[in-house]
């Protein structure tokens, strides 16, 4: 057993060295595919973080009439919170509204002097749960408050609606692009591995002839595939690091108000993902490509 394992690894390394042109072809294919995958994943993460932030910020304000009782206010609160899609409803009193307004307007003090009393209404700030940030939820909220006499106006619907729609579309576009890239990458990688194995079909034929079991033939190829996958992922990581410093960070310097980088931990997760995908595709691709050489 130990001997066999030593054999598998030795064979994998030897054949890796001996067929280095084929190995190089497979590795560069893996590297380019994984780089594209990682690149788009990072772009998708950046945008997703952006939209996620906006979505979390996006809230709907339910403005209340001025002359309502505490009981009426509580009733509105209960109605809003009874909707399952609602994450939170924060009560903003008239005083709080004024305070916030003053903070926002602190650069133009003259404007505040003109205010007499407090013209701002009290309101509820409604946030929806993740996954329920869509038009249907807004419609539900509207419907449940339609007949409520304490409610003056519901503000922020159209903007929020549009934002939700754009976020959904953007998300699907990214998912589609990434899925296509995974598929294209896998096809390319499997082809590259198949070429490498095709170059060694005679060896496989002889192994079968002298009675090597199928797994005995497979293991070195699988190990070699994983090695190619990891080396490809390593190269892809280097390319991503370059892209990160040359592209993303530069964009961020040029457009300062737009965060266009990912955190180090996110980057590490992406890299980890690339190594996992690389290893799996390397092993899976080898097994897949070997299939037709191991028949009979």
């Amino acid at each position, binding site marked *: 057993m130990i*001997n066999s394992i030593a*054999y598998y690894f030795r064979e994998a390394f030897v054949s890796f060295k001996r067929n280095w042109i084929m190995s190089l072809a497979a590795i560069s294919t893996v590297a380019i595919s994984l780089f594209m995958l990682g690149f788009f994943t990072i772009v998708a993460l950046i945008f997703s973080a952006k939209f996620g932030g906006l979505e979390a910020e996006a809230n709907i304000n339910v403005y209340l009439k001025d002359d309502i009782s505490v009981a009426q206010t509580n009733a509105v609160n209960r109605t809003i919170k009874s909707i399952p899609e609602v994450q939170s409803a924060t009560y903003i009193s008239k005083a709080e509204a004024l305070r916030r307004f003053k903070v926002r307007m602190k650069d133009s003090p003259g404007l505040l002097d003109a205010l007499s009393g407090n013209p701002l209404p009290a309101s509820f700030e409604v946030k929806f749960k993740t996954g329920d940030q869509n038009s249907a939820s807004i419609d539900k909220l509207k419907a449940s408050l339609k007949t409520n006499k304490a409610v003056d106006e519901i503000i922020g619907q159209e903007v929020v609606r549009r934002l939700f729609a754009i976020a959904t579309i953007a998300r699907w576009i990214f998912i589609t692009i990434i899925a296509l890239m995974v598929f294209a990458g896998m096809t390319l990688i499997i082809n590259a591995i198949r070429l490498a194995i095709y170059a060694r079909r005679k060896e496989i034929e002889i192994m*079968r*002839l*002298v*009675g090597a079991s199928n797994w005995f033939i497979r293991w070195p190829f699988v190990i070699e595939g994983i090695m190619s996958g990891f080396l490809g992922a390593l190269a892809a990581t280097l390319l991503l690091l370059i892209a990160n410093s040359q592209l993303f960070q530069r964009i961020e310097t040029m457009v300062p108000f737009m965060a266009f980088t990912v955190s180090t931990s996110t980057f590490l997760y992406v890299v980890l993902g690339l190594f996992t995908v690389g290893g799996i595709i390397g092993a899976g691709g080898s097994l897949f490509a070997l299939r037709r050489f191991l028949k*009979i």
Partner: protein
Amino acid sequence: MIKMRGVTKTYPGGHLALDNVNLDIEKGEFVFLVGPSGSGKSTLVRCLLKELEPTAGTIFVAGRDIGRLSQSKVPYLRRNIGCVFQDFKLLPNKTVYENVSFALEVIGKPRYMTKNQVEDVLKLVGLGTKMDRYPNEISGGEMQRVSIARAFVNHPPILLADEPTGNLDPVTTMGLMKLFNRINRLGTTVVVATHDKEMVDSMRKRVVALEAGRVVRDQARGVYGH
């Protein structure tokens, strides 16, 4: 050792390669399988190796019905049948020694344990001094000796050769026949498929003649033709 009952093989497309073949080969026999190209010799050999499944009939090797052998057990069948082919099937990037030790390695025997075994078999085939050569550095006859050494290194009960001398001159051929004879005398059942008349006639061994997929003659101490 080998028993074939009603073995028929029809290739996709309808070509009948073996037609109701019945054949018994005892342990320790030396059998020539003769017949013109296309008579079904190679098909028969490939059926014995379970490279092909017969359309009908059963084949027993060492008492085992190989038709009922699962695909995953085929390697174990092949460890019992050493094979020699016309095109030698040597790996060009391995030395003579490595080509032979490879056969033991892939059935799970570690290198350090097989050194004597490999050297002995290479001496047996007369290549004791050329173990470190590469296949392109030796002659065709020597390459076939390497391939015989590889087939025999594991001391299988059966040695199958499919046109082993097809590419070789008569003198080299005679040398190889003597080698097959020596291996046969060690107790191995030897089956040689060939259309080399001179070789068959000079050996005076059992001859099974195939024609259009049928056994037309089975003769002890026979000759190639009438």
